[in-house]
């Protein structure tokens, strides 16, 4: 595999993660347990989809990719490279909150690394994204600590949410094809390095919250090679429903 192709794979999986989690976050609009949470998940959805758009534009401008809207709305599940974690339905609030916490710290370490990438367009994009992500992790950390220290029932539900999420979160770091090429070119440090940094980011918060970090025994892989849960196609059907009525329409 050529380096250009490996780079496209990297950008595509990042963008697909952002788009799909963005859509899932937006499903809390109107349903948040309190108004501030409704607004927070809606705002984070907007940020995620903005980052997805910026990444799809990189594909379009640097690799001769298709128009971002077409790319986002017209592909089927098998063409997506997102991890299973972001595909899962919003479920309970504690699951969505835990996913937000685990995912946003993963994204933070990724963009921190990409800010130093030898692929110059990453530096620009990562500089912007990591500033915005501060607000996401601030939000996640505050709620995780708050709910984990709010009594027995609350703490148990948060621990259960973590136990249910952790192997799925491992799927964020599924190694990509030919990533050693990208590591050698200092384009990015590779998934296992990011995984270690991620652990060092989430551990202090977990400790403060009194959460027990599970062992990563069976990370849920498959998404990066186009194998998905049935939830993804359902999400894509809904997300692209209006767009597919008239793909040539201008808005």
């Amino acid at each position, binding site marked *: 595999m050529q380096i250009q192709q490996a780079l496209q794979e990297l950008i595509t999986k990042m963008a697909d993660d952002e788009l799909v989690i963005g859509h899932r976050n937006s499903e809390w609009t109107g349903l948040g347990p309190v108004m501030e949470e409704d607004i927070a998940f809606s705002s984070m959805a907007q940020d995620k989809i903005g980052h997805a758009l910026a990444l799809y534009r990189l594909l379009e401008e640097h690799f001769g990719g298709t128009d971002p809207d077409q790319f986002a709305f017209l592909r089927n599940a098998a063409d997506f490279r997102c991890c299973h974690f972001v595909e899962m339905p919003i479920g309970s609030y504690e699951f969505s909150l835990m996913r937000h916490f685990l995912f946003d710290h993963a994204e933070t370490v990724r963009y921190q690394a990409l800010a130093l990438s030898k692929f110059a367009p990453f530096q620009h994009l990562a500089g912007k994204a990591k*500033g915005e992500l501060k607000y996401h992790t601030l939000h996640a950390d505050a709620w995780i600590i708050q709910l984990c220290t709010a009594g027995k029932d609350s703490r148990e539900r948060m621990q259960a949410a973590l136990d249910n999420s952790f192997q799925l979160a491992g799927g964020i770091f599924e190694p990509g094809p030919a990533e050693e090429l990208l590591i050698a070119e200092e384009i990015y440090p590779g998934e296992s390095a990011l995984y270690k940094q991620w652990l060092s980011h989430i551990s202090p918060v977990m400790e403060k919250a009194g959460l027990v970090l599970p062992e990563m025994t069976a990370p849920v892989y498959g998404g990066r090679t186009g194998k998905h849960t049935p939830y993804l196609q359902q999400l894509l059907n809904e997300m692209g429903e209006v767009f597919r009525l008239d793909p040539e329409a201008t808005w």
Partner: protein
Amino acid sequence: MQTITTLQAVYHSLEQLMDPEIPVLNVLELGMITDVKVDIEGVHIKMIPTFAACPAIDLIKENIKNAVEKDLQMPAFVSVDKEVNWNSNRLTAEAKEKLRDFGIAPPGRHEGDVNLDMLVKVNCPHCGSENTYLRSPFGSTLCRAMHFCKQCGMMFEQFKPLS
């Protein structure tokens, strides 16, 4: 000479152009304009969004184009500058004063990195008290956070510091 006069006219035109979400600030005060050039084709303006997913960006681009073309009677080309990222230090001192008068706490100046204190310790724009807390890092627009003042009992918004 001709060009200088034209440039001044462009800046004058931009000064009249308010942000759709913060109607007391123009696009120059917000630090959204990164370059203005005039050549035989017309006026070339480069601009940047505050937050990457700012939904107002296309509207602002169009407003700039329409205003400059109307005021100068020459073609205007507005594009997003990919070399520069917006950060909250780009807000001018006047802009921060106007924000406060409008009831939005302005972001403090940062040294390249935003720390937690800057997000949490915010003076109330209504009564000036330091006795406030961050209610949510997300507000009515991507660039705002929600705070509460324990002194005067008012909710208020802060324009978020961004590095």
